[in-house]
């Protein structure tokens, strides 16, 4: 049962920030509500004031620039990202990830900002954006700040958003040449949340087959989306071989801190990390070679 609340609909970012500042921890923000309403129906979230920001059209945009890269407004629906020619052509892995996120109906109404602020470690966008080295812009009445996305997640469903702050923009830098990024999630039913999800970005150097840079991001493998930095170190600066990939997968599985739940045990999740890091890295490498 949802508890009664006062309902506010700011039309601009400024209005929303003023309301957030005024109501402090008595309020909660709703965008598409595709994650929030489930919690509210279960009585897990019951604010006095609900601030509906879905109407703030100024935060719904997808922009791309040869220098700045991709800029996505926090209130952009998943479906818009999935269908965007700009995203499909320059940042295909984002469109691929969105295509596998929940269902069309959810993607029509839910927003990428809402997804990130919900802070579910099993969410799809976070690992992909970590692999893409994205930054997040946040605003409050005090001003704006930007943080690397991997520093945005603090714990289960807890983000680095300060009171009075709203996520406003996702910034994805221009993809370096000879880079391949791939995301695969394992689940029982397609479009479910990941049992484990892995996103890998590999950048090849000018020397044949040498991995100049690599980013490995794990979803549903810890209390937040995480980078498997030790696994990355196995590959960085080396010519990637199958043995090396196997080693990276093995190390990543020890870096992960997965939970056991009804979908999988901790052991199984570690095994999934081991296999997926190897598999996804191999695919990212193939994509990098074609880039």
């Amino acid at each position, binding site marked *: 049962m*949802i*508890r*009664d*609340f*006062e*309902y506010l*609909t700011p039309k601009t970012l400024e209005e929303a920030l003023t309301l957030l500042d005024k109501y402090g921890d008595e309020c909660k923000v*709703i965008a598409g*509500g*595709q994650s929030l*309403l*489930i919690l*509210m*129906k279960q009585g897990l979230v019951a604010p006095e004031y*609900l601030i*509906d920001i*879905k109407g703030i059209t100024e935060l719904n945009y997808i922009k791309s620039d040869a220098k700045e890269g991709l800029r996505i407004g926090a209130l952009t629906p998943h*479906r818009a990202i999935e269908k965007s020619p700009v995203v499909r052509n320059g940042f295909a892995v984002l469109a691929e990830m969105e295509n596998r996120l*929940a*269902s*069309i*109906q*959810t993607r*029509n*109404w839910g927003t990428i900002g809402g997804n990130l602020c919900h802070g579910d470690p099993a969410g799809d966008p976070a690992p992909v954006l970590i692999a893409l080295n994205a930054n997040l812009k946040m605003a409050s009445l005090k001003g704006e700040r930007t943080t690397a996305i991997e520093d945005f997640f603090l714990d289960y469903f807890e983000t680095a958003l300060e009171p009075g702050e709203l996520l406003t923009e996702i910034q994805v830098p221009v993809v370096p040449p000879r880079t391949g990024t791939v995301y695969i999630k394992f689940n029982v039913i*397609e*479009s479910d949340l990941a049992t484990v999800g892995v996103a890998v970005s590999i950048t090849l150097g000018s020397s044949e087959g040498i991995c100049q840079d690599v980013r490995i991001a794990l979803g549903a493998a810890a209390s937040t989306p995480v980078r498997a930095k030790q696994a990355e170190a196995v590959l960085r600066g080396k010519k990637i071989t199958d043995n090396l990939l196997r080693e990276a997968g093995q190390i990543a599985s020890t870096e992960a801190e997965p939970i056991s739940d009804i979908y999988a045990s901790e052991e199984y999740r570690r095994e999934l990390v081991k296999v997926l890091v190897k598999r996804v890295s191999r695919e990212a490498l193939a994509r990098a070679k074609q880039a």
Partner: protein
Amino acid sequence: MKKELRFTVNGQPYELYIKPKTILVEVLRAHLGLTGTKRGCDSSSCGACTVILNGMAVKSCSVLALQANGGEVLTVEGLAKGNELHPLQKAFLDHGAFQCGFCTSGMLMSSKALLDENPNPTKEQIKEGIDGNICRCTGYNSIIRALTGVVKGEYKEEK
């Protein structure tokens, strides 16, 4: 404090005063008596509650009713024109694309949204278009056949 909800449903304008916590599916079923839209799981998993809001298929169990303010909703009751069934409804009947019928409203709305966006989907695209709707009875093939029939033009509306 109740808030005003003004929107059109199946072409008909409505003005209601509702508690802000009211969910769209509650407004449609309880306030407007349009019980064609079903509440299956109430948790965004099954799709039986699918309606078309502002041209997009959404799960009405997971949309705050007030977010439809100023908008347009199409429910299954809005598919037929008087006594003339929608091509999708005719196709579903012909192909036996339902058994218990509980998922059917949602399936029809997702199908309509799919064909509105892409009138010529491949079989894979059809499957993708309904993948937010669960059917316990049919095994989906009859639904896919019905949709394929519509795509092939077997149910062209008479001019």
